């Protein structure tokens, strides 16, 4: 499309045309020219508000505060200071911006619902002040007689105001396309990720708040001269929702949404109120209908009709590809005396009674590929969170080269040269792949706070983004939104983003999880090639791969480092073997293996070709599974293959996209979780999920139903629970929580219990206790056990399945699995 063609379709131009036509059209319908001006003013009001809502994701009820305060400021300026209309408007706008700065500094420290409520409180406070400070503001009667010299004619004022408004809209357009504005959208989608790219998100949010206040202030000032007076009304809490409603009606994810919203709102109000004084009845119903049926507003309906599915907050860019291979521009990593680029000493962290880091000591040397391994729940991701600064540590020291970064905020650590990828994919759901990488690549640029230039006009950042996409291999998906990528592609995007900030130290958290074999190879080679130039700390579960890839390995277990050294040392370390495989001192060559049961038992649970996932990201692919009455069935597999997703699907929390789940002849594919539980399936979920604010006894009582265990039976199996009966859930240790979770599941009549890694993160002695209890369950119920500790499984299970990347790759007796080491290697990454 030619530049002229693009200019022709520019939204600001459209708005200008609408504003030009309205004052001529409206009087034909019985309205006035002033109404057209009001529509233009409220458009700007809505736009200013939407900068916070649609672009930055901040729900603020403070818009009406700035609107009202600016109105008063402009009115008072006109009355008490000489200088004319324009000066008063400038004063009003500036006042609002200053107020925005002060309020922003106070309020933006809080997030979520607290932020919103604080904005509401301030709005009310200002309303009270305006209403009661009669001497200054005229109180109930407001300010009257604000003159408009030179612009007395309604039409003249309309075009004066419209010109200012269109100019403001153009500035707004530039801002949202500039690097600054682009970052706001990323903050909306995932603020934590933006911080982890090195952006000072607080600064950006404050900037957005002040800018929003300024635009709204301009609108408020213009209103003063339109009605030639100021009233406290606009500050009342009922009007706090005005900009919110208009923007929702029009569409919060569309640039011109506020224009359509204000037209509808004002026109409707004007028309309906001439018929009845209860016009709000009709309007309120319309509004609620919109919220329920079309949350994307009028623009949403329009895009559905015209099949243009995307948001129009910014221009939808045609992307021009640039080819090349990534040449990393590196900062020389600062090195401390002992040659380490990152060192950790004496690190401690607890969450209540749960100790997640216990005197951790770690050293990352320059250019090495250092892996961090350990069973689930060992505290690896928590360690990464402390290294990047997302959670504070309770004690200890973290050094980056020579520098102590223990108390440094997140974005400063990133700027210093640290980068991180996340275990659970953390990207921007509603930004395109290209934009995601571009934002990351922009993070270190000196232009990142620019308010005026087009973000897509920086050739070097664009080129770098394309190179990153090529390096990881998802360049062909550049125009898709992050949320629509397949899981494997999201992982690759994660890595591209981590590389984009030119880090010297990379923290990679399970970058291979969920990838298909071929992709694993590729990514593993990529990581290996990055070492040398970068220093890499890698968390991975594929122990075999880790042993071949790494220069050095550290093993973490229950928050403590139990071994550090070269791969060969680690592989032979008995403590490491015990930590991974469960029972210490067990001779691996002669495990007690449970026998397979007779095959003519009645099927209890069957999964028939079940496919399930989250949105576009499908985790389970055509899974077939069967559990017979009285069996103990094990489900093995690496992290990320879909074991927990499987349990959630059986339990009804996640509904399959296709396939059937049948329990005792009843189809439970679409049943709700509570119905499924009442049919006899109980779950001990990942993370235990005991209720922290209830006592142990209350946790049990909550779940109890006739036919299940009594309290006495539960205490009999788990004596420790009796001792702790009155203790609140949050004060229990890991082992106690596990036992409580298991007992709680049995309080209801259960014929099948789903256990999701019940031994995760437990000390060996506790494991023995829990194992004994689980063994006793075998007599009362069938069991589906998800585990990684193969050794334990073999003692208990009659049959096992192995999952790989969302499908069943092996079904058979544990004995068969045990004898085939090659198979174990392939499927689990570790041999028993």
């Amino acid at each position, binding site marked *: 499309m030619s530049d002229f063609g693009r200019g022709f379709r520019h939204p600001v131009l459209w708005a200008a045309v609408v504003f030009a036509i309205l004052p001529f059209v409206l009087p034909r319908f019985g309205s006035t020219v002033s109404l057209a001006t009001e529509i233009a003013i409220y458009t700007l009001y809505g736009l200013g508000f939407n900068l916070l*809502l649609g672009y930055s994701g901040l*729900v603020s009820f403070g818009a009406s505060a700035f609107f009202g305060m600016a109105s008063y400021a402009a009115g008072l300026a006109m009355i008490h200071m000489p200088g004319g209309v324009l000066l008063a408007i400038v004063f009003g706008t500036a006042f609002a911006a200053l107020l925005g700065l002060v309020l922003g500094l*106070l309020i933006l*420290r*809080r*997030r*979520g*619902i*607290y932020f*919103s*409520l*604080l904005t*509401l*409180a*301030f709005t*009310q*406070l200002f309303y*009270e*002040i305006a209403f*009661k400070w009669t001497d200054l503001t005229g109180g109930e009667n407001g300010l009257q007689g604000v003159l408009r010299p030179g612009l007395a004619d309604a039409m003249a004022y309309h075009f004066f105001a419209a010109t200012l408004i269109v100019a403001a809209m153009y500035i707004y357009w530039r801002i949202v396309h500039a690097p600054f504005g682009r970052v706001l959208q990323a903050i909306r989608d995932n603020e934590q990720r933006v911080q982890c790219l090195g952006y000072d998100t607080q600064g950006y949010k404050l900037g957005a708040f002040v800018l929003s206040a300024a635009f709204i202030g301009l609108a408020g000032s213009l209103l003063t001269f339109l009605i030639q007076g100021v009233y406290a009304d606009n500050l*009342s*809490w*009922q009007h706090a*929702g005005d900009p*919110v*409603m208009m923007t*929702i009606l029009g569409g919060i994810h569309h640039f011109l949404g506020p224009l359509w919203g204000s037209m509808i709102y004002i026109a409707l109000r004007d028309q309906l109120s001439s018929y009845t004084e*209860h016009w*709000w*009845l009709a309007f*309120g*119903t319309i*509004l*609620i209908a919109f*919220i*329920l049926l079309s*949350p994307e507003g009028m623009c949403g309906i329009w895009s559905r009709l015209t099949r243009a599915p995307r948001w129009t907050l910014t221009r939808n860019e045609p992307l021009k590809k640039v080819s090349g291979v990534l040449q990393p521009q590196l900062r020389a990593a600062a090195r401390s005396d002992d040659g380490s680029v990152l060192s950790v000493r004496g690190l401690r962290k607890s969450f209540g009674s749960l100790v997640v880091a216990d005197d951790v000591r770690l050293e990352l040397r320059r250019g090495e590929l250092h892996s961090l391994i350990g069973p689930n729940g060992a505290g690896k991701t928590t360690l990464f969170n402390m290294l990047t600064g997302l959670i504070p540590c309770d004690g200890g020291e973290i050094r980056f080269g020579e520098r102590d970064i223990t108390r440094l905020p997140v974005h400063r650590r990133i700027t210093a040269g640290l980068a991180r990828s996340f275990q659970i994919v953390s990207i921007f759901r509603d930004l395109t792949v290209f934009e995601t990488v571009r934002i990351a690549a922009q993070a270190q640029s000196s232009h990142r706070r620019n308010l005026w230039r087009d973000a897509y006009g920086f050739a070097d950042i664009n080129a770098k983004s394309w190179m990153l996409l090529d390096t990881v291999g998802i360049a062909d998906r550049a125009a898709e939104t992050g949320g629509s990528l397949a899981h494997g592609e999201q992982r690759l995007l994660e890595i591209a983003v981590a590389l984009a900030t030119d880090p010297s130290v990379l923290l990679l958290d399970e970058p291979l999880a969920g990838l298909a074999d071929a992709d694993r190879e590729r990514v593993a080679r990529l990581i290996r090639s990055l070492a040398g130039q970068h220093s890499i700390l890698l968390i991975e579960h594929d122990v075999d791969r880790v042993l071949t890839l790494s220069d050095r390995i550290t093993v973490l277990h229950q928050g403590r480092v139990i071994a550090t050294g070269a791969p060969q040392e680690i592989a032979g370390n008995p403590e490491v073997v015990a930590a991974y495989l469960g029972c210490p001192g067990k001779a691996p060559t002669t495990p007690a293996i449970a026998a397979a049961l007779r095959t003519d038992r009645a099927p209890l649970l069957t999964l028939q070709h079940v496919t399930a996932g989250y949105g576009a990201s499908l985790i389970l692919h055509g899974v077939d599974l069967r559990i017979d009455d009285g069996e103990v069935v094990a489900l093995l597999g690496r992290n990320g293959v879909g074991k927990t997703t499987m349990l959630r699907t059986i*339990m009804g*929390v996640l509904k399959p996209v296709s396939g059937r789940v049948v329990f005792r002849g009843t189809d439970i594919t679409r049943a*709700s*979780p*509570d119905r499924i*539980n*009442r049919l006899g399936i*109980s*779950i001990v*979920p990942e993370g235990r*999920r005991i*209720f*922290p*604010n*209830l006592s142990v006894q*209350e*946790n049990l*009582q*909550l*779940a109890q*139903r006739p036919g299940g265990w009594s309290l006495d039976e539960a205490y009999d199996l788990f004596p420790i629970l009796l001792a702790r009966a009155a203790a609140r859930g949050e004060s229990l240790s890991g082992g106690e929580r596990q036992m409580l979770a298991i007992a*709680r599941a049995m309080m*209801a009549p259960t014929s099948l219990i789903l256990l999701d890694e019940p031994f995760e993160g437990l000390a060996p002695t506790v494991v023995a206790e829990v194992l004994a209890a689980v063994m006793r369950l075998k007599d009362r119920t069938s069991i589906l056990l998800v585990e990684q500790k193969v050794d334990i499984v073999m003692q208990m299970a009659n049959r096992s399945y192995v999952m790989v990347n969302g499908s069943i790759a092996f079904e058979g007796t544990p004995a068969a699995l045990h004898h085939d080491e090659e198979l174990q290697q392939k499927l689990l990454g570790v041999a028993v």
Partner: protein
Amino acid sequence: MTSLILSQIVNGLVLGFLYVLIAIGLSIIFGMLGIVNFAHGAFFALGAYFALTLRNELGDVWIFLAPLCVAVVGMGIEVTLMRRIYGKEPLLGLLITFGLALLIEEIIRTVWGTVGHPFNAPTALSGFIEYGPILVTRYRVAVLVITVVILFGLWLFLRRTPYGRIIRAGSRDAEMVSMLGINLKRVFTLVFGLGTALAGVAGVLAAPLWSVVPSMSAGAIMPAFVVVTIGGLGSFAGAVVSGLLVGVSVALTIQFWPAAATAVMYVLMVLVLLVRPRGLLGERWERFE
């Protein structure tokens, strides 16, 4: 002077307990359903108006039905509207209840008119009581006693009964509660009914103290937000402490600086939130931050 201050403090306690009653309903709905119920003040107003009509049509004694009627309306709204937005963006819940608040107020205006109605306390409760330096109306004492009894009963309900357990557990992890075989849909409806009924009771009790006008809902919802945020989301004790704090502050300010009476609670709210972001006794709930 002291007598004046003490009497005002007692008035403040009465006001405070009314605020607590409203705020607890809001807090329960918030905790369990995750919805900021902007329409809570409208249910408060409905309580007063239903009581008015019941009294005029059927007689004094039938006032007690009013909160029940409010609960029925509340549950009806939950089933038809609220259910559709659970699990969606929190903003939608905010907006729907906001729209609902204004809609209900408009309905009240249509049915009962825009003019305020007088609502006198029952004759048995008129007159004053003197306790030493404290002078207070008999009705206010009655309100104090009733609200304390209700709050105590509510506390017992939450702490000791199975249903209360479900509500407390569901506030932290509703999904887990459903995996234990409890039908959440029904629980949510009843919780919404309970929350709105509490607002309705407060409306009935407040009717003789404030005038029965359509805009009385604003006089309930804003203090309720303030109380809930100062006390801490989801904290029963917090709501009681902060409700009394706000009530007494407002009452004293009315006496000595009337113009600032309504503003003082917002100043309090701002101060507390800046110093203790989760309120005085609030706990850390990730989903609200």
